[in-house]
């Protein structure tokens, strides 16, 4: 099952395309990170997936074919929007009560236990909580709905490192313990490797790379060799080339089985390195191919 599946999904604001011809399938059972620079279309894609925004073209379904934004779809999605909006004049207890009334399922006991663990007083007004606490409350509310998919839009952007760590720990616990699929957007690359096992890289309103992190790492290699020979390397597609003095570093799409030209050294790449390389080369194509991937197979990387 795909938790989010988009085909030809496009969204235009005025004359600007926030998202263009996005075809994408995020399989269930992952913590998927949506990465890209500001304005890449991450928030637009997530807003389309939760039905806050209607597409200009194409379509998007969630949780195995439910129309995005329909009550059936929303029933299974816990969404924490950017800046984690809460009603500032309501107490935390009221926010729990409110969310319980607006949903079919609500695990009050689990939510209260979680808030007690976090030392967040139930009587405190939401507006008087710190940013980190507000984010925790918003996440607690989303998880108490027992969703099958948790969608987080820039959840940690405003948080300090400790709050960020606690927040992600809670997300990962939910993913591991309750089998909740997670899709989160972020432009914070640190910790990405620890958190995400599926990566969607976006730039300029298009999906540039998508796939399981392990597969992506397995099919990329960093070659280091003499700068003079860098231009002659044609065996495998080069994502990014950088030169420092006499040495050139080529990020190429190659597996461990691919031959290494004489005079070149080969290294494995880290996720952050890989992401940065693609972010610096928005033109460097990635996937997915015209056929939608319906399985959790890694999508084919096409140059």
């Amino acid at each position, binding site marked *: 099952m795909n938790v989010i599946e988009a085909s030809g999904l496009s969204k235009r604001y005025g004359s600007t395309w926030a998202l263009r011809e996005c075809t994408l399938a995020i399989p269930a059972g992952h913590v998927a990170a949506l990465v890209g620079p500001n304005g890449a279309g991450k928030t637009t894609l997530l807003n389309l997936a939760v039905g806050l925004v209607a597409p200009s073209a194409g379509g998007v379904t969630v949780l195995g074919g439910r129309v995005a934004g329909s009550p059936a779809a929303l029933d299974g999605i816990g969404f924490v*929007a950017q800046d984690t909006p809460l009603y500032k004049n309501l107490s935390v207890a009221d926010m729990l009560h409110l969310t319980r009334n*607006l949903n079919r399922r609500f695990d009050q006991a689990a939510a209260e236990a979680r808030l007690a663990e976090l030392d967040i007083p139930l009587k405190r007004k939401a507006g008087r909580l710190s940013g980190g606490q507000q984010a925790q409350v918003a996440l607690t509310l989303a998880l108490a709905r027992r969703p099958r998919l948790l969608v987080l839009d820039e959840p940690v952007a405003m948080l300090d490192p400790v709050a960020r760590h606690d927040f992600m720990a809670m997300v990962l616990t939910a993913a591991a313990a309750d089998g909740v699929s997670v899709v989160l957007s972020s432009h914070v690359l640190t910790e990405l490797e620890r958190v995400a096992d599926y990566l969607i890289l976006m730039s300029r309103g298009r999906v540039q790379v998508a796939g399981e992190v392990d597969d992506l790492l397995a099919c990329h290699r960093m070659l280091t060799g003499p700068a003079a020979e860098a231009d002659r390397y044609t065996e495998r597609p080069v994502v990014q080339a950088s030169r420092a003095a006499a040495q050139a570093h080529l990020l190429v799409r190659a597996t461990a089985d691919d031959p290494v030209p004489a005079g070149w050294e080969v290294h494995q790449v880290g996720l952050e390195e890989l992401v940065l390389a693609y972010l610096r080369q928005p033109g460097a194509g990635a996937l997915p191919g015209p056929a939608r991937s319906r399985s959790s197979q890694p999508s084919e990387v096409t140059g």
Partner: protein
Amino acid sequence: MTALTTPAPPREDASLRPVPWQRMGWVTWRQHRVTLAGVAALLGALAVLLWIVGLHVHQAYSAAAACRPTSSAICDDMFGNFSVMDGFLANGFLLQALPALIGVFVGAPLLAREMETGTFRYAWTQGIGRLRWALAKLVLLAISVTVASGLFSLVTTWYYQPYFAASNPVPQPPLAPTLFDLRGVAFPAWTLAAFAIGALAGMLIRRVVPAIAATLAVYTGLVFAAGGFLRAHYLTPVLTSSLNVPGTAWIASQWWTVTRSGQFAWAGRPPMSVLGNITCPNSGPPNGKPTMVSIEQCVVQHGYTQWTSYQPTTRFWPFQWIEGGWLLVLSVLLIAVTVWLVRRRAA
């Protein structure tokens, strides 16, 4: 023969029952109870004020009405006292602001605040879905403010009774703009319309303060349009050539024709050019001064006919229901458009 494959069991969402409507009752109450309490306090305080002043007004009026002999100087004095005793309430300007206030403070912020603070991204992604959320909130609040103002209208209707009473020597025309929409079903209908205008303005503008300004502007415009233009045409005016038009009638227009040819002569009062050319005998009571009516009678004697088109007082309730009706239809339309916008909103 192979057995047919049994169809896959229906997915969980096939039998998914939506979140019940009743739950929105608590949600609406919890989120808007301060506003609703404010409306209740405002209307309640004004109702008490109207009640206290109204008791005096009613007493003074009954005393004046019971005064004998009628039209004596003493009785006229008593009516005079009655008609000036409540000053600022008599013209109704203060109360005209109430529907606008409700539109501004209940209607306009309802959706504008969600948009302004971003909380719509929480509210519209809950399992209940934004259609039910919006519909329930709008309908519950619309009913609340309409019922509250309907109750208040009972008080104003009672309060203003003496002003329109038949035995009042200078009765107000019940259909005249300033007090017509404060009584009967018109007042709650205007309140509902103000709320609906506010809600739609909030959804369109998405900012609380500009939405409030827009609500005030549109509501005021609509009040003036209704009082100044629409109301006079609810029913075809009665046309009469009699000079004895009842004082409480709401006169739409007056004009003169030449009696013999039926040709239009002039509109309104006889112009000086006509009055200068005719001499009128002193047709007033013996030793009395000629009145305006007698001047008009004199003009009639000189071959002119006065035509008056007017709305008679008996049309008060038909006009109330007509006004209440179109305002209700308008409000339902505005609320429907608002819900549609919530559902369709792409941003």
